Structure formats: C-alpha cells, structure tokens
C-alpha cells in the first residue's frame, strides 16, 4: 500500500481521488492545476517547502505567479504539447529564493482534466 503512494509510483487517478487531508500526508509536494494553469491542489508539504500558504495559491495561474522557473520548454511547454505525460525530471527550483535541486514528476492524461506536478526534495 505504501509503495503505491510513493513519489514515482502514485498514479494520477489515485491523486485525483484523494482528499486534501490524505494528500497533505504525502512526503512530497503535490500541485494540481487546470488546463488554464489555475492551481486547484496545493498540499501541505509543498506549502512548507515554498513558504506559501495554500489559500494564497489556490486559483492563481501556476506558471505565471508561483512557478515561473518552470515556465519554459522543459516543463510548462510539455503540458501544452503532450496530452499524456508521466515523466520524472531532475530540476532546480528556487524554493524561498534558494536554488534547490529537486526531482519533478509531471503527470497529465487525456481523460483527466487536472494535471499534476510532484516535487521531491
């Protein structure tokens, strides 16, 4: 059971079915957003790493207001171009303005409206 909820193992569908409380217990950051990039899911782990409160992030365009460092061909463009993605990419984020090495998992599926980015420090 634990295995299935790991950073590399957890599926897009199970993330979608979880409630906020359950997503908050995951040890990695979870950001879910709509096709227009407005943030719908922002779990507690991600809020802790970024220093931002969930309530101030929900509804804002993710790649423009929160994660401009992912607003390039390596991340944001992929969600534009590829209807189906499940890829892990090594990346550098600027959590609390400090360059921080992380792994990202990009998740999108043609039959699911919400897309996800998982962040592992």
């Amino acid at each position, binding site marked *: 059971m634990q295995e299935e909820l790991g950073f590399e193992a957890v599926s897009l569908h199970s993330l979608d079915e979880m409630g906020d409380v359950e997503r908050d217990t995951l040890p990695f950051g979870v950001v879910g957003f709509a096709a227009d990039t407005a943030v719908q899911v922002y779990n507690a782990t991600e809020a802790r790493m970024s220093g931002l409160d969930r309530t*101030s992030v929900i509804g804002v365009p993710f790649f423009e207001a929160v994660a*401009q*460092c992912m607003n390039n061909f390596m991340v944001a463009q992929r969600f534009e171009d590829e209807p189906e993605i499940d890829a892990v990419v090594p990346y550098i984020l600027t959590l609390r303005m400090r360059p921080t090495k992380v792994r990202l998992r990009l998740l999108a599926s043609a039959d699911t409206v919400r897309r996800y980015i998982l962040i592992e420090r």
Partner: protein
Amino acid sequence: MTERSSEEQLLEFLYACPVGLLECDAAGEIGMMNPHAMQHLLPLAGPRNAGNLFSALEQHAPELRSIIAAFGSATGRVCDGHRIFVELGAGRRTAAPKVIACTVVKLGPDRLMATLTDISQQVVQEQRLRQADTWFGSLLDGINDYAALTILPNGRIVAGDACFTRQTGYDVADVVGRDLSDVLKTDASGGDLRLDEQLFLAERDGWHLQEGWQQRADGERYWCQRLVVARSDCNESCPTGFSVVLRDVPRRAAAAEDLRRLLTRDHLTGAANRRHFSQVLEREQTQWRDLRHSLSLIVLDLDHFKVINDTHGHPVGDIVLRRVADVCAALLPPRGIFARLGGEEFGALLPRYDREQAIGLAEDLRTAVAAIKVETQGGILSLTASFGCATLDEAEGSIDVLIALADERLYAAKHAGRNQVFHSEAYAA
C-alpha cells in the same frame, strides 16, 4: 489578509516578480534567486551548473565573466542591459529570437546583484525602426547630394543628371549606352551584390537599397548607397527600366565606429560577438534564398581548453583565446566573419565559399592554431583545435541545420582524435 505573515507576503511578491533577480559572489555562485531568474538560467545552462551565474552563461555570454573581472571600482553598476543573444538561427520562427538583457551591480568585493529580463520583442521592434530609419534617412538627408540615373533592364545607362557628373567624375554624354556596373566598377569581390543581382531584387520587390565600395573616374574609391527602383509603364508587368540613385556616404566617424565595435565585438577577444554573427547569418540566409549565393560555416573548438584554465588559470586561458582569435581572423577573406560563439568555441562565416574552399581554409586555421606558442610561468604552452564545416546548401537554407551539421562534424573530429578537420562525406552532397 492580516493572517498572512509579512515573510509570506514577501515570498509571494518574489515568486511572482516578472523580472529575474539574483545575488551571487565574485565567483558567480548564486546565493539567492527568484523563479523568473531560474526560468531563464536553467535552459541556458544545459548540462552545466545552473547554480553558478558564470557557468550557466558560459555558452551564451562568456564575456560576462571578463566584464565583471575587469570592473575596477569597489562598488557600482558593472553593466546595464547587457544583451545576451540566445538563438543564433531563426529557430522555429514561431516567436521572436530570444534576447535577454542582463544588468549587474557590484555591492561589495564578493557580492553581486543581477537582473535578467526578456527583451526579445523590444529587439524586434528596434530592428524594424532601424530599417525604417535608414530608409527615411536616405530619402531626407542632403537631398542635393543625390545622383539620379535611368537605366534599361540590361543595365545600360539612358540618362543621368549633373550630380552624377559631380559625384563620379564622368560626363553623362560619355557614359550613355554603357553598362552602369562597368562604369562604377562596383567591388563585388567581398560579397556585395552585383548590379544585375540588385536589379533582379528590385524587379521582384519594387526597390532595393545597398551600400558598398565604388570607383570614381579618377580611380578613387568611395562608399556609396545605391537605391534601385523599378519603373514600369502603365500595365506592363515587367519593368521597362530602373531609376538609380547614388549617394556618396562618408565613412562613419570615429565615435560611431567605436560604438559599432562595442556592439559587434566580443569583449575579451575582439572577435565578432554572437549578436553580430547572428545578424550576418540572417543577412546571408536572405541572399542564399534570393540569389543562391553559397555560404559556408566553420566551427572550431579548442582541444582540452579546460585543462589550460585549470592548470595555468583564467588569465592564461584568456591570452590563449585572444591569440586564437587574432591568428584566425587574419586568415579570413574580406567578407568573412570570425566570431566567438561560446567559451572556447569560435565560428567563421564565409559568404560565397563552397565546401571545398571552407575545408581548405579550416586546414589553414588548424595549422595556424597548432603553431601558436604562449609563454607561461610553467614553460611554453601550445594548443590545438578541432574543426567542422557545413554549407547552407547542405542545410537547405536552414540556419539551425547549418549550425547543427557543423557542430556534429566538429564532434566527429573530436572523437577521431582532435587537432583535425572533419573531412568525410565530401562527395555525398
């Protein structure tokens, strides 16, 4: 609102800031940066360390390190809006070629603050304005200095005015019926358009303007702006003749020449910079498309340059780069452009050179680089470089493919043992 701490508000502000901000030490190690800065740096860094400003920019703006090192004051503005030209080719042409402006302020001996801003759109607008400026400038400036001529589609002179005689020294009566290009002895050796080529473009586009060297009757060379306008009678689709306007343009004054050097030269080596290289490439691509003028590119990369830097230090590495640029630029033909494309990578752009000529020149450059001797405290240092060549014909007119082909061959030369020019496939194309 009141529940949010001021720290959180500050973070939110920095996450959303649409300008890249970063702070680093004198060695370029980044302490803090906002997401917008990383948005630009990460793609530029490629496999290099994006956590260090200099290594992230090593490929696209290697000059930044030397500009900052050469800054003498303890504090102050090191550079303001320094332009980083990201793409050499036109790319996929879905958007403007990417240009980033970088401003660096020195806050202390080991503390730098930098901003990064995307100014691609602004640069496109500037280019458009500059073209319009040249055009209106040539129409409005000193209208009396214009020589006006009428010629036939075959280039023969039908009529000219008194200013033509003043400017060129030829009596109009003596040159009527002669070919204008014979009269002006336009210097086309360097790659300027010949008159017939210019007529072809004027017929297609309605007009064409170019600058180049011409000769007066007494043999004196002068720099001339030549505007050719197609004329047609009523409903004729083919031009029945051309109006030619010649303007004697004194060469640019020293101050303008300084500015030009500043904008087109690499700070360290004096070779052309990426921006200039990119502009010439686009100009030559147009000529290839319109007139099928051949164009070759040689790229070269110094072998084991990192070892030189690591063993002898950056100052010696800098001397080596300068010597390579001097030696190679001296071997180029008049219209050739020798540019620094990255840390230790250079490119030679050769208008009207075919593949064999380019490979021949690459061999000469290789020999010249291998003959360089640099004196260091540890003895005489010598070096070698590897070379790849490609032509715009092979690339079917694509700048991106041209660069990729030359790079590919450069790496083949590296893999084959370095200090060589990649040769095979010579007869494939």
